[in-house]
């Protein structure tokens, strides 16, 4: 798109735009970059007030593995490769796969594949390169930066953080699946219904969106704790105690997220011309058939955005999961509280940092893969609502 010369930004505006953006990017990425650096260092370096100690890890280098210039090059290459695959290769791969398996399965496969590959590179291939490639590199191989993976090992193996990870995975997968199934149907119905009641449902949803989650949890807690007595007349002996179980939490999180999901999807479906499904109905389809045959194939961009927001809600939740799940079914985010509340020694603190970085890593991969969808989905959806 060419702008008329007078509308083109002047040099001074361009310079200030680049400057603003540069400052913001440092500002946005710095805390995340910094905790990643801290998590790889011995406690004395991690909490040093000298920034070079945190980055280069003087004490850590004395104790454990040192990264040489060449190792840093390897890591840089791996990061660049990940970025390239996520932004260039993966979308094309998904487009190809989607013709065989359908878009959601294609994205799920691609993301899982990407995550597994990233994990393999980070945990297996890079350490091997770092440990063994130095031998034949000569002077370039003098270590300049100390790192240690000890805190990650103790968090994941010794403190069994993988259990929390699996719980998070289960809760999040459940939330996304149920939320999208229920939400797409409702969003489509709301977009095509011109009755007054549709409007009232949307307004009610907006009010529900505003409720603080602790208000709702105050309602669930007594009911969930006593559910076996409350449900006994209906279910008899089999009545379960809902407190501590993952399934009810999934439904709670889905319900909390429904208002946002149906507003987003309603706006998205409203932008799909109604002539499309009307044509199908003229040909003798019912509304459900029209939905399945005509709308489902074109709805994926909106659904993927809604899915991302459901994912974030389920994955990031602290309040609901910490109150409604027992210790054994606990997810990662409340799980980390046990690390930073202990904090008796500085080793515990670095463990908490390592756990925090472990929670952030999947989100990092997710933005890498889905950044286009987040931006374009919001363009088409929520912003017009």
């Amino acid at each position, binding site marked *: 798109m060419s702008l008329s010369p007078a509308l083109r930004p002047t040099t001074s505006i361009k310079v200030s735009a680049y400057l603003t953006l540069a400052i913001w990017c440092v500002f946005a990425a710095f*805390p995340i970059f910094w905790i990643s650096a801290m998590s790889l260092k011995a406690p004395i370096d991690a909490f040093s007030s000298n920034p070079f100690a945190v980055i280069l890890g003087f004490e850590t280098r004395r104790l454990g593995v040192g990264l040489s210039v060449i190792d840093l090059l390897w890591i840089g290459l791996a990061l660049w490769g990940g970025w390239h695959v996520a932004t260039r290769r993966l979308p094309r791969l998904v487009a190809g796969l989607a013709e065989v398996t359908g878009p959601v399965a294609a994205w799920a496969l691609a993301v899982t594949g990407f995550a597994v590959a990233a994990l393999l590179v980070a945990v297996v291939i890079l350490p091997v390169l770092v440990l063994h490639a130095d031998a034949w590199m000569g002077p370039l191989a003098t270590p300049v930066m100390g790192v240690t993976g000890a805190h990650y090992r103790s968090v994941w193996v010794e403190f069994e953080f993988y259990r929390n990870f699996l719980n998070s995975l289960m809760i999040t997968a459940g939330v996304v699946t149920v939320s999208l199934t229920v939400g797409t149907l409702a969003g489509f119905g709301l977009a095509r219904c011109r009755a007054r009641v549709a409007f009232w449902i949307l307004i009610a949803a907006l009010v529900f969106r505003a409720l603080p989650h602790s208000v709702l949890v105050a309602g669930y*807690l007594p009911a969930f704790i006593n559910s076996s007595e409350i449900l006994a007349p209906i279910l008899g002996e089999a009545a379960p105690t809902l407190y501590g179980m993952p399934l009810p939490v999934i439904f709670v999180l889905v319900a909390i997220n429904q208002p946002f999901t149906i507003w987003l999807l309603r706006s998205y479906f409203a932008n799909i011309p109604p002539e499309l499904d009307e044509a199908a109905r003229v040909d003798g389809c019912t509304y459900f058939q029209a939905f399945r045959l005509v709308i489902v194939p074109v709805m994926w961009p909106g659904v993927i955005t809604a899915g991302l927001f459901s994912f974030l809600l389920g994955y990031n939740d602290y309040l609901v999961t910490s109150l409604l799940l027992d210790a054994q079914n606990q997810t990662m985010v409340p799980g980390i509280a046990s690390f930073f509340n202990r904090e008796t020694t500085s080793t515990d603190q670095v463990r908490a940092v390592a756990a925090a970085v472990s*929670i952030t890593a999947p989100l990092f991969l997710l933005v890498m893969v889905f950044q286009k969808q987040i931006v374009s989905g919001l363009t088409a959806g929520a912003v017009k609502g």
Partner: protein
Amino acid sequence: MRLRTFFWFVGPSVALMLIFIAAPLVSVFVQSFYVTSPVLETVERETCAPGFLGEVCTTQTVTRPLLDADGRVVTETEFVGLQAYRSVLELDRTRAALADWDLQALLQIDFWKALRFTLVFTFVTLPIMLAVGLGLALAVNTVTERVKGPAIFLTLLPFIITPVIGALSIRWLFIGDGILTALIEWWLQRDVALFAQAWTIEILMMFYRIWHVAPFAFVVFYAALQTVNRDTLESALIDGANRWQRLRYVIIPHLAPLIVFLSLIHLMDSYRVFEEIVGFSAESHVISLQWITYDYLTPDDAGNRSISRASASAMLTMIGIVILLIWPLRRTWADYSRRET
């Protein structure tokens, strides 16, 4: 679409919202008037200890929870009216503080302290979030395509990060002699402890929140900037509008509905400020309304949860958000009705 078909489509979603949002609301409302407590019994217990020349026996009355045949604690629920509200609001202390016109004393009381922080937090972060979001959107809109991709990627990071983790990462930068505290100390040439008093913690929390939500405003504004009508911009140019006037009279009116949308979402989200307090472990200095309810719901040392007081504070929190939302909701309603008719 016929109403019957419509209900088949929205049925599952509406059912979920009714069961898991509307029903708990009703039950919270009812619970706030009742107190469930264990039934206590008083028994006389005689304890004897061997002593010189025979046993020494003392009799004391002990209060203990009554157990039923299965060994579980028997509880009873009684209607207490507004007692839970009174204890959450600490009405006696509130009245005393108001009688003396003593704002300091009023803000010592948990509920009012939390309300003050929640409102200040919400209304301070709102304009800054909008300004930062708009500034970023305008900046990204100006730079070349090659820079846009990485810039958007980095910008989205604070938005998707888990709130508790985000707050923790900011805390680790500042706590003790954390790297940024060291920087401030070097700059001011004096000792600072950012986690030792309420106001610095509040500033850090607002700082964190803006870092976390500005990217969302950015994405929404950036998307909308792509649809600004170029003809209007060019005619404004021909009419002699300078850059600032074009921003003020063409671009901002185009973004106006989104500013309302973002403000609405922000009001809802920052009114329930909570994760910052967990991440900063700030509960001894700063608390929010949602944190009060959470605290009542967490089992205390004896394993009891004060459900009744939690419900009362939940109802009070809810009344607050309803008052805040009346104006934006009426506006959304008016917009929607106008569009539909």
